[in-house]
């Protein structure tokens, strides 16, 4: 075996390969970050998800992030083709992908480079790499592999060549489709996991994929093989203590949570056009929506998708459309119509990198301002952003209610990080109160106009086709309370006022957000959406040094949560941390006059008149806590 003796002194002392006393080298660790990277199609993600589920089942906190190549079948052994997964797990709950990896399992050396490019490794990271390339029949491959390994060692990684393919081949002729399971076995040994739950999960997975007993048995064999090999050869293993859950837990990604939230909200129509990274939500719904009385419509384009949803909603059926940035752009005009004619609708934007086609599979928080202001004219509407996967579920229920109560579009901003990240959370207790009410078909009260705006709140009830005496012609033209086309200036002013007033009415029902950390201090870090876990982790780290830093997370972006100005006033400085573009003051030509701010900062500056600073990046991946930490520390030091 080429596996080198590691740092587990006792183990090395007592045993050689194959005869090691397994528990001798077991060490307890509070948390670990492990990655599996492979060529596309080698199943790293499947293995990683299974491993994450097993950890979650045992009671560990878990967060998994997928590493997704941009193409379906990128060339093998290429950096851009790297496909994989990161699993961060620990004794405490995990809210984000964390910093550098502790362990990486790589199926070849080239895909590993993509992780190095992403700054995902540190000196000391243990690197398990398939040794098959050393014996490749292709001289060039052998050479590349050898060079890379030397390079990895120079970079300080703890390189372990292991026989992934060789071992897998003992069980199957097609090791590309089995290596992942062998690695799952290896990780189970490395992290002292019971095999039984892994076996159960594999069975479930393949049953869901309608595979027979033979396939399940083969995969079980591979897991056992990886496990046995690991127990015999690993010179260091880890135990990550778990706390068994007291309540039932579920584990899913943000897109599944959004889709399940649609079901929970009693939404009847989901109308969409395929777009990464939103599509998996519809894939999920396509399989199950009908069991909950819903219908998924794949439209001819995003305009058709929202048009269909608006038609359904106008006819009294609650509807959602799910998309990403480019789709949002196409829906713009109809979102404006929904504002103008007060048609309830829920619009989910799973944000990706923009503008244009941008970074289709990668995270960005670039659609905040366009969601708020992206349509011509004045377009008051509700914009909310869940900050966790659990909130992806809950916010759909809230969004549906808001849309109908306030007769308005509600935009739910998630992102690629939430969409593909997985983490366990308490199993929601389903309630009939979540469901939309049945369509009202009772006679409409004669004489009550279609927009009988309450003069204080702007709220009004809407007639639904089928209601006798309620007939009205909805129009996108300026209209009065009867929905009659009205160009008179006073009428237009009144209608605009009423549509805007609804937002104030909603805002008055909201509570100020809770500060994470002390209620006052030197610096307040403000975020929105998927960054909450990473920001809070960074802030906690800095607070441990006695620094007076707190953070605040905003979920209602429009209408904006109340009390912000007052909260900001208790801190010497306020800054946002966001995954979108902003100018750096240190860049050429950039000064306080020319600087373009990050999107939430822009909004908060306008809203509070506080000189809100920002630090934002567009790395095409979630912000790791350590980068946020560095940014905050720099701001604190700049102060002195």
């Amino acid at each position: 075996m080429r596996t080198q003796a590691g740092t587990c002194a006792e183990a090395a002392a007592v045993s050689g390969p194959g005869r090691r006393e397994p528990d001798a080298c077991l060490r307890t660790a509070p948390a670990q970050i492990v990655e599996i990277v492979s060529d596309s199609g080698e199943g790293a993600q499947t293995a990683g998800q299974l491993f994450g589920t097993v950890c979650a089942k045992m009671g560990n906190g878990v967060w998994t992030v997928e590493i997704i190549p941009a193409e379906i079948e990128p060339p093998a052994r290429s950096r851009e083709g790297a496909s994989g997964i990161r699993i961060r797990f620990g004794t405490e709950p995990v809210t984000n992908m964390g910093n550098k990896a502790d362990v990486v399992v790589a199926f070849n050396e080239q895909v590993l480079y993509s992780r190095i490019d992403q700054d995902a490794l540190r000196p000391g990271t243990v690197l398990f790499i398939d040794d098959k390339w050393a014996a490749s029949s292709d001289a060039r491959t052998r050479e590349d592999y050898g060079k890379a390994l030397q390079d990895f060692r120079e970079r300080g990684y703890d390189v372990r060549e292991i026989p992934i393919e060789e071992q897998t081949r003992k069980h199957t002729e097609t090791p590309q489709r089995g290596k992942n399971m062998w690695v799952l076995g290896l990780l189970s040994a490395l992290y002292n996991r019971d095999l039984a739950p892994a076996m159960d999960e594999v069975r479930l997975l393949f049953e869901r994929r309608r595979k027979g007993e033979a396939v399940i048995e083969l995969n079980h064999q591979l897991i056992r093989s990886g496990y046995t090999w690991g127990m015999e050869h690993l010179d260091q293993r880890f135990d990550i203590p778990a706390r068994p859950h007291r309540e039932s837990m579920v584990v899913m990604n943000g897109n599944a949570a959004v889709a399940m939230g649609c079901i929970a909200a009693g939404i009847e129509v989901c109308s969409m056009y395929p777009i990464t990274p939103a599509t998996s939500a519809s894939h999920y719904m396509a399989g199950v929506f009908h069991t909950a009385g819903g219908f998924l419509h794949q439209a001819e384009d995003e305009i058709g998708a929202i048009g269909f949803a608006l038609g359904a909603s106008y006819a009294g059926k609650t509807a959602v459309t799910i998309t990403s940035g480019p789709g949002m752009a196409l829906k713009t005009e109809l979102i404006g119509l929904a504002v103008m004619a007060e048609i309830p609708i829920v619009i989910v934007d799973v944000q990706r990198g923009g503008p244009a086609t941008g970074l289709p599979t990668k995270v960005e928080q670039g659609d905040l301002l366009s969601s708020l202001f992206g349509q011509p004219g004045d377009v008051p509407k509700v914009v909310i952003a869940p900050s966790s996967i659990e909130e992806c579920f809950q916010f759909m229920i809230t969004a549906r209610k808001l849309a109908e109560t306030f007769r308005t579009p509600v935009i739910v901003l998630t992102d690629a990080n939430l969409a593909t990240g997985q983490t366990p959370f308490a199993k929601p207790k389903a309630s009939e109160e979540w469901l939309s009410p049945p369509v009202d078909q009772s006679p409409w009260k004669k004489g009550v106009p279609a927009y009988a705006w309450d003069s204080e709140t702007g709220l009004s009830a809407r007639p639904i086709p089928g209601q006798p005496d309620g007939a009205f012609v909805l129009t996108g033209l300026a209209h009065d309370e009867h929905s009659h086309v009205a160009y008179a200036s006073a009428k237009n002013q009144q209608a605009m006022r009423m549509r805007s007033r609804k937002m104030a009415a909603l805002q008055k029902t909201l509570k100020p957000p809770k500060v994470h950390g002390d209620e006052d201090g030197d610096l307040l870090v403000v975020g929105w959406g998927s960054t909450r876990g990473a920001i809070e982790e960074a802030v906690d780290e800095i607070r441990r040094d006695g620094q007076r830093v707190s953070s605040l997370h905003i979920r209602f972006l429009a209408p904006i949560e109340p009390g912000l100005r007052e909260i900001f006033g208790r801190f010497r400085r306020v800054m946002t941390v966001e995954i979108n573009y902003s100018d750096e003051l240190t860049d050429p030509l950039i000064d306080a006059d020319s600087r373009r701010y990050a999107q939430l900062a822009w909004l908060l500056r306008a809203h509070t008149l506080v000189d809100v600073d920002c630090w934002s990046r567009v790395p095409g991946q979630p912000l790791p806590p350590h980068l946020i930490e560095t940014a905050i520390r720099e701001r604190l030091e700049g102060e002195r």
Partner: protein
Amino acid sequence: MYGLKTDWPAEIPPRYFTLQEYEGSLPRWCPGCGDHGVLTAVQRLCRDEQLEPEKTVFVSGIGCASRFPHYMKAYGFHGLHGRALPVACGIRARRPDLHVFVATGDGDCCSIGAAHWVHAVRYNMNMVLMLLDNNVYGLTKNQTSPTSLKGRKTNTHPRGAWLEPIDPIQTTLGIQNASFVAQTVDWNPPHVLATLKAAHRHPGMSFVRILQRCPHYPNQDFVELQNNPAKLLLLTHADGIEVDDAVKRMFKNRQEHDPSDLDGARRLADREDAVPVGLFYRNDSADRYDRNTVEGLATSRRDKIAALEAELSRYEI
């Protein structure tokens, strides 16, 4: 007594809707605009078929023709330019109890809304699509439309339109799953009514192109057609559009055409010597997407919650 029966029926007499009950606000189209006649025909249709106004929805885009819903007394959705069809399909999807009509113009349907036109025809959901084709953009004041004849001078092509127009009938016939394709002319009200009646009764998407005069930006072609009825060719068949002899006599030229004959329909649409009116094609057994979209409509609240719980359990660890 008095020879009257004494056993009065106890049921409430059915509601009867008069023509006036379908009349919305006063039409604002130009005098002589072909849209007026179509509006009257539609109101007659509603009266003849006794469509409950609260169960009837008129959907439109933007354009002169798209003002249609305002002039009906029924539910209406006067949306955005080109987007009537997705909205209509969404309304139809979960409300099989509603009668859905779409009023659209040649710019609205065949230009900005062309993608939706193709797909809505293919979805074949039960509704009537009235294409009020005046070969020009009326509302925005005389620009070339995709159905404007080559050479027609407009504000955007003062030297004449460069290209041959799209033929809405031929195009619709070319879409898989098209199930009802008819043509009529606004200046023959009984034929318009008969065509719309057949369209309304057809189970699926009924595409009706109505050649519509725009006296404000007149199309010489239509003026000629009206002056020289011999250029119109009435399509007749037992399965076609039912018209009485008086209407038949309005047409000098008639031809038997079996509406199940798609190739024949295409040849007719290609004819340059005559403008066929009547039913080109009908297929009552084409797939209907609205049979799919109603899936699960009757799901009870309890079943919805049960489905949610089953799903959550699948993700339970």
